[in-house]
């Protein structure tokens, strides 16, 4: 019953988020600040992980192709498919649930504990619109981070492949270009938009409705990470079933 109650509360929070919008002159600063906090500050870790995991995917694929009849350029093909379809949108989103999600939960949770949210409400400000809406808008730029992850993942794979001596640069590039289906990119970005919405709203929900003190802020961050990851994985399955099968 508690789960149902929280699901209902989550959707009511989303509805309330759109009521009585904050003045645009204030909101635009909040959005820009959240773009900086949530997207720009995450680019470093996204780039680092994408590059090296791209390399690892390539090495493992190359090492597992032992049959001499399988052409070597399939290493590039497998790397591209893994990165575009799964690694960049899903794997990076789970990492972002830890980084961005816990930041959102702890910052909103701390505001709850220190009565800053009450202060907003007493002033007559829709605190959900003020706090959560800019994060949703800022995270609509999340596909930009995923584009970088796709690009660097493929480059990382190329570096590992060529410098590790698994295949030639020409073979890798041939594989990357082989049988490219543009819809796969659309699929990746559709997933990314859905995950971006989850990344903004689930951690906000856990921070906004938390009760207690500093210890509970930490617990709320952990819970929000778990639930954001669970929902990303669940929706990843549903979206894949809907869009690719």
């Amino acid at each position, binding site marked *: 019953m508690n789960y149902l109650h929280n699901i209902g509360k989550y959707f009511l929070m989303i509805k309330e988020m759109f009521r009585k919008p904050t003045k645009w002159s204030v909101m635009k600063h909040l959005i820009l600040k959240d773009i900086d906090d949530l997207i720009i500050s995450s680019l470093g870790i996204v780039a680092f992980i994408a590059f090296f995991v791209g390399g690892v995917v390539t090495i493992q694929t190359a090492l597992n192709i032992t049959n001499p009849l399988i052409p070597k350029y399939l290493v590039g093909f497998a790397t591209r498919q893994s990165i575009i379809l799964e690694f960049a949108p899903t794997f990076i989103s789970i990492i972002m649930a830890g980084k961005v999600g816990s930041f959102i939960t702890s910052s909103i949770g701390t505001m709850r504990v220190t*009565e800053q949210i*009450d202060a907003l409400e007493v*002033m*007559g*400000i829709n605190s959900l619109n003020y706090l959560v809406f800019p994060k949703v808008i800022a995270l609509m730029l999340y596909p930009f981070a995923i584009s970088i992850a796709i690009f660097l993942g493929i480059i990382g794979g190329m570096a590992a492949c060529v410098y590790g001596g698994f295949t030639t640069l020409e073979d890798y590039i041939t594989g990357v270009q082989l049988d490219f289906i543009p819809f796969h990119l659309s699929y990746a970005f559709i997933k990314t938009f859905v995950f971006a919405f989850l990344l903004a709203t689930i951690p906000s929900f856990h921070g906004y409705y938390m009760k207690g003190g500093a210890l509970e802020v930490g617990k709320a961050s952990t819970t929000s990470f778990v639930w954001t990851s669970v929902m990303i994985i669940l929706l990843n399955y549903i979206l894949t079933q809907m869009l690719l099968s």
Partner: protein
Amino acid sequence: MIIVKDLYKSFGEAHILKGISTTFEKGKTNLIIGASGSGKTVFIKCLLGLFPYEKGCISYDGKIFSDLTENQKRDLRAKIGMLFQGGALFDSMTIAENVMFPLRMFTKQSKSEMEDRVNFVLKRVNLADAHNKMPSEASGGMQKRAAIARAIVNNPKYLFCDEPNSGLDPKTAIVIDNLIQEITDEYQIITVINSHDMNSVMEIGEKIIFLIDGVKVWQGSKETIFKTDNEAVTNFVYSSDLMKKVRQMYIEERQ
């Protein structure tokens, strides 16, 4: 005027407020006193609409709070200044930005007009040099004064203070008390203060309400609290030897 009639509030099985009725008048500092857990903070949060109440009625200048739509409630709240126990300043903003915040949200003033107003109120609370300090860099007293500045910057009609002196040294506490009383007189606002501090009660309590377990057991002023025979009030207010001596001296002086 704020009129409260027969207010009831519970959390599950716990009955916190049990039929409180009172009025708060313009230009007066109204103090709500009582032991910890007596329902003071819940009462003030019900007045502000932060907690919904089960039964009773709260009206602000004739407008019944529960009859207002969400948007009307928010419009009313824009006329309310609130000083929270911990100050509740926004961590990500400087003191000047915190004070300017209600102006940015609710007025169409130009930047220079807002800056003039912020300078004026910060000077009014003796924080003229603290514009660029972050709340974490300010002392407890400075944070409280900055929070008062934020509460009054938009000329509120109602000012609520939740334990304004908690955690402050006696000297700073007196500064805060005097500031609240001066502001109340100067702008003729309705001020409601929630306090444990007996010094505040004696200094600025123009109207005092005493709560025990969510029930209003006594109502009076800083003058009448010395003379009252109400045992619950005397046990609470004059629990320390110092306060007993103060009362004794006051009674002897009057005789």
